[in-house]
């Protein structure tokens, strides 16, 4: 009985293979996009953990300088000579041939035995590691890119992340220009008896507890939240497909259910069988979806790794490792999604009256009351989102506003459409037109899920592309302002810097020293820059807000400039005071935009800088010169001082690199955006195709009254196009609102900068093109069927009383 019942249930799918395909496709896509994003996030987090483990940050206490700066090596020696068992680590960005590697200098002798997670096995003799020239351990991929470049000897360690390098502390200090400096001290678990207190030996150091992932994971949280939100969006759109397919299949199978019940199958067993069926589908689709998701993640991973490295300096593996827990969570989400989508149908099945007739049309025609309720809920959501946008704070609030806006607009849309079509029907005079509007109106509820999915996808597309394009326009303008100097030179030593400056001085308009130091700013690690007083800054620097006498105050050391990130994160206002290490708090005289930098930054006058950071090395300067003179200067610096592309960068090269980083940052967003749009297209296709099968009872009478099949098909096409274009028209304002939320709320929280909203109607046209193509594709199959349907099939509608 059970087997027979089950095969009877399954026979439905045999007769409706297309419906089955849609069900599986919906589940597959939902699982694929969700689990793909999860895989990316998991991989990135694993990379942070590995980076932390590499220097023992996840297992050992560490000591750092209270103001976030570097520790004097003498302090390290003093601690050791006082009995503190510590091991020094120096860390910094090692720029080599245009690449930036995170170079970590360790001290292998005092390092705790399990201090480094990186297997340095087979690395060679300790003596080779610690005595000049030493060697630098890098990931295999890095070795390839540095072939032929003048570096210390390189050796490969498969345990290292790309973008990371390990050397002895002495070698690393020299490569980083941090002689005599230590970034942090690893505290060994076992300390001798009677060691003097830290406050006596090194009062400026603070102790940190072990922490997996380190600081990086805090910085990148917002980025991952962004990805997660997109994954969730795609998942929801996928579930729309599943929901509509399951609902339709349930209605179509009512006669089967009824017959089975009449034959004595208990409700409980019927429920169990249906549950088993949907579970089976979910597992099959889940496995396929996982495969797809893995593919999606693997394709996106290099871009994500590039973005995280460019934006946050986080070293992330560009390839994907296979993780069992990811498979389990992927299958769970597939199953959960399927059961969620089927919940309503299952509930109805449990209360199915034995003699109720099948009502596929009735199912498709959700009542006006449902639409009304839905619209009320939508208005509530939109009002809530607006209220939250005005009052709320934080990234989560930002995403809640986004969700409320999207969902509210989507829920409202079928109701609006219904009202619009009803209105249009009143104005229609000719009978055919009247029938067209009336028929459209009664189709709206059945298509509501598809148009909602479409609206969400369109709006997300408009919103994200508006955000990215606004950002790009602002960013390029900002680069022009910010990179005012024609040439940037970095000397290898202070002596060389002096020589280079002497040589350049008579040849150029101005030399602008660029000095910086690490410091703790408002409790977070950041940088302080010293700036010269020069028209380059006075005229060009991208100030967002400033006092009128800002540059005079900065020059006099009576005011500071802060970057937007620092300003917004700490809810500062002009005139607020910020304390710098070794100085009294100074008032903020201006705020400047500083895109692409996650940390806080402060600019102060050069004199003040030298007073506060006497140890900072003066190695860099910007050169103002006539653009025509630049090639000769580059050549001269090369021949006179041997300064190559590592030390001399012209403005154009920096701009090129910055834009490349920018493109990479949004490549992942764009890819996910397109995938979501694709899923919405499929949702439309699925709805159109399934509904068309049930429309014969509506079309047959019209045909019988003399309308030609071709005319009917044309009307169907017009109807679909109308629906899609109307959805797009609504999606554009929703998308702009979305972009506003992204720019004004989410970006401020996630990255720390706010950007002006700009509109790019050309993008909308492109989207409209996509929409028309999608609707043509989605109706092509049903229309073809309609155009070729035999009159006898149409006649059967009158003969077959179901």
């Amino acid at each position: 009985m059970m087997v027979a019942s089950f095969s009877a249930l399954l026979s439905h799918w045999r007769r409706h293979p297309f419906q089955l395909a849609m069900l599986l496709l919906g589940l597959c896509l939902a699982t694929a996009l969700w689990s793909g994003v999860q895989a990316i996030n998991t991989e990135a987090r694993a990379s942070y953990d590995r980076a932390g483990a590499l220097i023992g940050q996840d297992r050992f206490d560490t000591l750092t300088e209270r103001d976030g700066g570097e520790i004097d090596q003498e302090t390290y020696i003093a601690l050791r000579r006082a009995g503190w068992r510590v091991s020094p680590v120096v860390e910094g960005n090692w720029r080599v041939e245009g690449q930036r590697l995170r170079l970590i200098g360790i001290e292998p002798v005092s390092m705790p035995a399990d201090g480094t997670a990186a297997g340095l096995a087979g690395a060679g003799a300790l003596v080779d590691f610690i005595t000049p020239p030493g060697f630098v351990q890098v990931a295999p991929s890095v070795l390839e890119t540095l072939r032929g470049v003048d570096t210390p000897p390189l050796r490969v360690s498969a345990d290292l992340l790309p973008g990371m390098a390990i050397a002895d502390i002495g070698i690393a200090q020299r490569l980083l220009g941090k002689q005599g400096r230590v970034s942090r001290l690893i505290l060994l678990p076992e300390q001798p008896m009677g060691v003097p207190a830290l406050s006596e030996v090194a009062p400026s150091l603070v102790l940190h507890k072990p922490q997996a992932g380190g600081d990086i994971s805090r910085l990148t949280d917002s980025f991952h939240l962004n990805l997660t939100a997109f994954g969730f969006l795609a998942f929801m759109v996928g579930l729309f497909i599943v929901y509509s397919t399951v609902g339709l299949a349930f209605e179509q199978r009512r006669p089967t259910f009824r017959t089975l019940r009449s034959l004595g199958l208990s409700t409980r067993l019927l429920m169990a069988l249906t549950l088993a069926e949907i579970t089976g589908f979910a597992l099959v689709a889940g496995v396929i979806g996982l495969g797809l998701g893995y593919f999606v993640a693997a394709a996106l991973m290099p871009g994500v790794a590039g973005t995280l490295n460019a934006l946050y300096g986080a070293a992330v593996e560009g390839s994907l490792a296979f993780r069992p827990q990811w498979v389990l969570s992927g299958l769970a989400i597939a199953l959960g999604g399927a059961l969620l989508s089927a919940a309503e149908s299952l509930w109805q099945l449990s209360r199915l009256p034995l003699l109720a007739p099948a009502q596929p049309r009735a199912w498709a025609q959700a009542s006006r009351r449902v639409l009304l309720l839905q619209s009320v809920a939508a208005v509530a959501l939109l009002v809530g989102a607006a209220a939250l946008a005005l009052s709320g704070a934080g990234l989560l609030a930002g995403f809640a506003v986004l969700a409320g806006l999207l969902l509210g607009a989507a829920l409202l849309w079928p109701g609006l459409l219904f009202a619009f079509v009803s209105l249009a029907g009143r104005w229609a005079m000719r009978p055919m037109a009247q029938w067209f509007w009336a028929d459209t109106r009664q189709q709206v509820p059945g298509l509501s899920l598809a148009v909602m999915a479409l609206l969400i996808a369109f709006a997300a597309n408009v919103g994200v592309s508006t955000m990215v394009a606004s950002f790009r326009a602002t960013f390029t303008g900002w680069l022009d302002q910010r990179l005012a100097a024609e040439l940037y030179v970095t000397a290898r030593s202070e002596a060389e810097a002096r020589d280079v400056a002497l040589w350049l001085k008579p040849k150029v308009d101005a030399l602008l020293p660029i000095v910086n130091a690490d410091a703790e700013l408002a409790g977070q690690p950041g940088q302080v820059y010293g700036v010269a007083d020069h028209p380059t800054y006075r005229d060009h620097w991208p100030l967002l807000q400033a006092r009128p006498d800002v540059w005079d105050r900065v020059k006099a050391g009576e005011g500071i400039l802060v970057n937007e990130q620092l300003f917004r994160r700490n809810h500062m206002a002009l005139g607020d005071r910020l304390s710098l290490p070794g100085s009294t708090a100074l008032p903020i005289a201006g705020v400047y935009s500083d895109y692409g930098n996650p940390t806080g930054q402060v600019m102060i006058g050069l004199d003040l800088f030298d007073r506060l950071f006497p140890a900072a090395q003066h190695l860099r300067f910007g050169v103002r010169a006539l653009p025509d003179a630049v090639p000769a200067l580059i050549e001269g610096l090369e021949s006179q001082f041997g300064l190559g592309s590592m030390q001399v960068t012209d403005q154009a090269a920096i701009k090129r690199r910055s834009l490349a980083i920018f493109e990479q940052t949004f490549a992942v967003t764009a890819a996910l955006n397109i995938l979501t749009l694709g899923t919405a297209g499929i949702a439309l296709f699925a709805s159109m195709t399934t509904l068309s099968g049930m429309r014969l009872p509506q079309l047959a009478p019209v045909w019988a009254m003399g309308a030609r099949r071709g005319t009917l098909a044309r009307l169907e096409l017009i109807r679909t196009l109308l629906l899609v274009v109307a959805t797009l028209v609504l999606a554009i304002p929703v998308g702009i609102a979305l972009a506003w939320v992204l720019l004004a709320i989410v970006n401020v929280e996630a990255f720390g900068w706010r950007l002006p909203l700009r509109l790019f109607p050309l993008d909308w046209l492109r989207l409209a093109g996509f929409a028309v193509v999608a609707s043509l594709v989605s109706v092509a199959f049903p229309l073809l069927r309609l155009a070729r349907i035999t009159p006898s099939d149409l006649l059967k509608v009158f003969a077959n009383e179901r």
Partner: protein
Amino acid sequence: MNARALLVLLFCAVASVSLAQGFAGLGGDAKGYSVPERGTVLTFPADHGSHPQFRIEWWYVTANLKGEDGRDYGVQWTLFRSAMAPREGEGWTSPQIWMGNAALTTPDAHYSAERLARGGIGEAGVAAEPFTAFIDEWRLAAPDAAGLDRLDMAAGGKDFRYDLQLEATGPLVLHGDRGYSVKSESGQASYYYSQPSYRVSGTLKFPGRDMAVTGQAWLDREWSSQPLAADQKGWDWFSLHFETGEKLMGFRLRHTGGRNFVSGTWIAADGTATPLTPNALKLTPQATAQVAGRKVPVLWRVELPAQQLDVTVKAVNDAAWVAGRFPYWEGPVRVTGSKPGQGYLEMTGYE
């Protein structure tokens, strides 16, 4: 003590393997390193300092102490220098690696600690005058410029510390041929001298209590470059103070196959040193104890007929195991028999 050369070499190999998982492959030959030469005159205080052009070197103090409570205590303070290249370098470029071992033995407990440090950065090192040897907070240093005659000695670990003052009551003793000490038939040798006659006073610190102590100490200084022969598997080394004021340094190198190389120095009460002819000294294990999972001889018969010496040497605490990256037995002993006394015993290579 050629024997201890093995210790240092092993320390390098073992330590670097466990430290950085595979910095093995330490150069085994003496190429480029200075080699001890017969006839070289040791000059002081310069030779109290370090000799970076030699591969291995140590400053080694053992002390037999008696506490206010009447119990016997033993203290060890050791600083090893191991050169990975025969030179000194500025800052981190120095190829010198330093290792400290400190131990405190009571009749019923044994504490030990180990330190490792790079040379060149001020974390560990030795200066000849005024004499200062240090690694981290451990110190063996002269408070004045009087060579090694007066020393302050301090070290500690997670559960012990000691602060001792040493004062020499006799002259330095040069072993072998005026400090050129031959160790094996194949001619391996080292520079080796000792100050065997320190009077000691000071304090031992245990968690929650201090113990004032007095006693005797022995300092060994040795440096060389030559690794041991492949068939030498361990050694037993004695430094004994007799109540007569006489002293004995003796060692036995155990070769595979049961052959031993035995030698030493007899030191008269006035400090006059007499190198022992090969095999004049007889060292016979009498009983073993189970220590750290191995059988270690902790009861010995020591005979030197030329000095009417026939004594039994017994460990104060059988469990004097120095558990570091290269573990070995080192602890105080009591001497009974024809010339009663006390001393220190070191044993390695017991598997």
